[in-house]
């Protein structure tokens, strides 16, 4: 009987060769969409990491509706541009900065990325994102009555995306705020009024502690806690304690407190102040900040440096803590969470550190609020490489048309719109914008974005140890002075022009 089938050897050879060919084929980059343009061309894809606005389905565990407005806006946009597909990148759970840097370095980033405005000075020379000036100077085709796209935004909002070279790299569309959320029922039960001074606040906290409730819910966990609460606390305290030295730090020019980004102390001024000894971690004002923070910490939850960040809200919502420092992004959760069974309110302002409490006190705190929250987007340079930069810009223009922006932000519920036309905006967010406009934002924030990221990490590591009692104030001050000088020197090496006023 003749055998016409393949031999085993031949079969294996053919299988191997086919497998290798398929592997090689998979490694070949796909043909650019432009080369395939034609009646049946594939839609052009714009991918967008929208951070907190990323739409998703409601899960069984959700206690309030997740954001979904971008799906509706996507549909409306698709009606106008059927040849463009929008792709929303799922949330990046943690380590966003690292993920973003990896994507940008590798050239695999989405066309639109959420981006913290404070990082611009660090990254703007790396050719990772586009200068948006040419687009902002043109009218937004989706908005009528304005000369330019830029003109549709409130001035300080869009200006917040300006790099040291004077160009705008970031589309900022919202305003964010924080506040002391307090358990009004608990305060009433103890006969406490909202304190106006730090001394009154200390008395109130002691009364709350005596009643068996934690006075202030906060976390100094390194996974989010210290970078958030440590940052806010040091920024507002320094603004007050260094008030009398602001002009000296800035090199002679007075620094007024406004809500406009760019009018506070900027990185080059901070670097020069550190170099010239006008700002140091060994300053008595700096040590005073540490003293006030340490004293306050007796009213924090036990083991607050190990407390998961999510527990800050849980402790407050379940009535275990009387006050929590929360942000406007919790506006919707707080209003909808069935866990909250008490009456609550927001301190209209942080209690003032008077001279009774500190020799450097006297000035009220600024609002811990500012421009740019969930709506801060860069367009990455890969958008141009992929031939979709114009589509990317067009989608952003559509998204920032006031009715669309307000639809997206209202749906999220935690951010006020940063456009001029705010018709239809959620009125419950006015408390944050009022605080920002009335009290201004902090003028000095050396720990978040002014110095190097390495310095920031060192600051949070050491601050956590200081707050947990592992480092003394003098040790903390001495270590941070060294770190500060190193960071300033590094920045001066990278930007020699920063050394001159």
């Amino acid at each position, binding site marked *: 009987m003749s055998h016409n089938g393949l031999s085993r050897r031949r079969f294996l*050879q053919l299988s*191997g060769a086919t497998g*290798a060919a398929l*592997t090689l084929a998979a490694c070949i980059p796909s043909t650019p969409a432009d080369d395939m343009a034609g009646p049946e061309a594939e839609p052009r894809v714009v991918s967008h990491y929208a951070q907190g606005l990323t739409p998703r389905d409601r899960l069984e565990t959700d206690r309030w509706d997740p954001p979904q407005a971008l799906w509706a806006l996507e549909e409306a946009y698709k009606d106008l541009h059927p040849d463009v597909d929008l792709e929303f990148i799922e949330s990046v759970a943690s*380590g966003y*900065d*690292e993920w973003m*840097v*990896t994507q*940008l*370095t590798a050239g695999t980033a989405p066309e639109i990325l959420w981006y913290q405005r404070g990082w611009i000075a*660090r*990254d703007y*020379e*790396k*050719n*990772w994102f586009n200068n948006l000036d040419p687009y902002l100077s043109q009218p937004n085709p989706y908005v009528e009555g304005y000369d330019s796209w830029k003109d549709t935004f409130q001035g300080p909002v869009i200006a917040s995306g300006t790099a040291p070279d004077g160009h705008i790299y970031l589309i900022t569309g919202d305003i964010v705020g924080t506040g002391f959320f307090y358990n009004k029922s608990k305060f009433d039960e103890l006969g406490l009024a909202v304190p106006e001074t730090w001394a009154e606040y200390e008395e109130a906290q002691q009364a709350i502690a005596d009643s068996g409730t934690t006075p202030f819910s906060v976390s100094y*966990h*390194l*996974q989010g806690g210290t970078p958030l609460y440590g940052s806010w606390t040091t920024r507002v305290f320094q603004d007050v304690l260094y008030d009398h030295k602001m002009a000296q730090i800035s090199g002679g020019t007075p620094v007024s407190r406004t809500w406009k980004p760019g009018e506070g102390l900027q990185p080059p001024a901070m670097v020069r102040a550190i170099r010239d000894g006008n700002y140091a971690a060994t300053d008595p004002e700096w040590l005073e900040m540490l003293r006030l923070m340490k004293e306050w910490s007796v009213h924090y939850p*036990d*083991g607050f*440096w*190990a*407390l*998961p960040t999510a*527990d800050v809200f849980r402790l407050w919502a379940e009535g275990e803590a009387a006050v929590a420092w929360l942000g406007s992004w919790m506006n919707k959760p707080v209003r909808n969470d069935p866990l909250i069974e008490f009456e609550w309110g927001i301190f209209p302002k942080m209690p003032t550190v008077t001279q009774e409490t500190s020799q450097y006190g006297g000035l009220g705190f600024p609002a811990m609020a500012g421009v740019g929250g969930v709506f801060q987007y860069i367009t990455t340079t890969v958008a141009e490489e992929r031939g979709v930069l114009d589509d990317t810009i067009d989608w952003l223009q559509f998204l920032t048309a006031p009715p669309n922006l307000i639809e997206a932000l209202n749906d999220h519920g935690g951010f006020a719109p940063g456009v001029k036309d705010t018709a239809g905006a959620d009125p419950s967010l006015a408390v944050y914008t009022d605080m920002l406009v009335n009290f201004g934002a902090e003028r000095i924030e050396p720990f978040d974005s002014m110095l*190097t*990221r*390495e310095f920031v*990490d060192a600051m949070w*590591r*050491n601050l*956590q*140890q200081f707050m*947990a009692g*592992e480092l003394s104030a003098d040790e903390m001050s001495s270590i941070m002075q060294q770190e500060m000088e190193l960071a300033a020197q590094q920045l001066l090496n*990278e930007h020699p022009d920063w050394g001159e006023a």
Partner: protein
Amino acid sequence: MSATLSTSTPSSGQPAAARPLLARIARYRTAYLWLIPTFALLLVFNYYPALSALYHSLFQWNGANIKLFVGVTHFVDLWHDPLWWESFTHLIILTVALVAINLTFPLGAAAMIFHLWNLRAAYFYRVLLVVPMVVPGLVILMIWMFIYSPNIGLLNQSLALLGLENLQRFWLGDFKLALYAIIFVGFPWVAGIGTLIYLAGFQAIPTELMDSAVIDGASTWQRFAFVELPMVLSQIKLVVILTVITAFQNFTIVLVMTNGGPGTKTLVPGLHLYKTAMAYNRMGYACAIGTVLFFLTLILTYLNHRYLRSSVEFTGS
């Protein structure tokens, strides 16, 4: 020598080594062709990044627009970097602890399974130890984070239930205990590849050897200590090498559970490298850290091979 003889070709009667290289390649071209994809992937994904890291360790490089040749400056800086030394100390503690753990618990579990008379029971327990390995590592870490959670965690709640509130701690936030809490993750450490490696070693021991030990009157302990243990020395060596390499490379556990904290109490060189590269954009310095770790692992692997030899090597021939 025997290897050389075994490759001689009967047709020519000439040793293969004497043939020109190209002729030998041509003769075995199919075999070489099959090897090409493997080596190509190794080159692209293993050797090229390693060599690239070595090269870039000599540059001040931010991964984007700054790239200046700085020679061995990064290595000198590393020598004076207190964070490196602190993280390295933690790594030594972790490595020693993990080696000790992997030399005892999985070995004990494998020995117990091996000695089960009931083969069905042995099979059952073997499967029982393998099943947890299919659970993604990240999920296990999340479960342990919940166990350690200071307020609602299983550990502190269990201690409270037993009336041992005085033993409750902020496990991952305790400056003295955090590193040990990390080591404790995975307790009782038997559901891993180590147990399977040991078990394979035990099963390869010739039954004649075991029988003669029994006939000679060796007790259970004597058989374990003087027959079985020396016979699985190759497996022990392998587990030690794998443990050391894993300990040096892996930083996922600290990244996820503590981010190196509290303070820097759980920082390890891998996490230091990762932050230096991805957070601080100091890619050149990160490459230097990686290069040093690579050579340290290489040296430790060599020492392991050199000084931890099995008295009997089964080659299968």
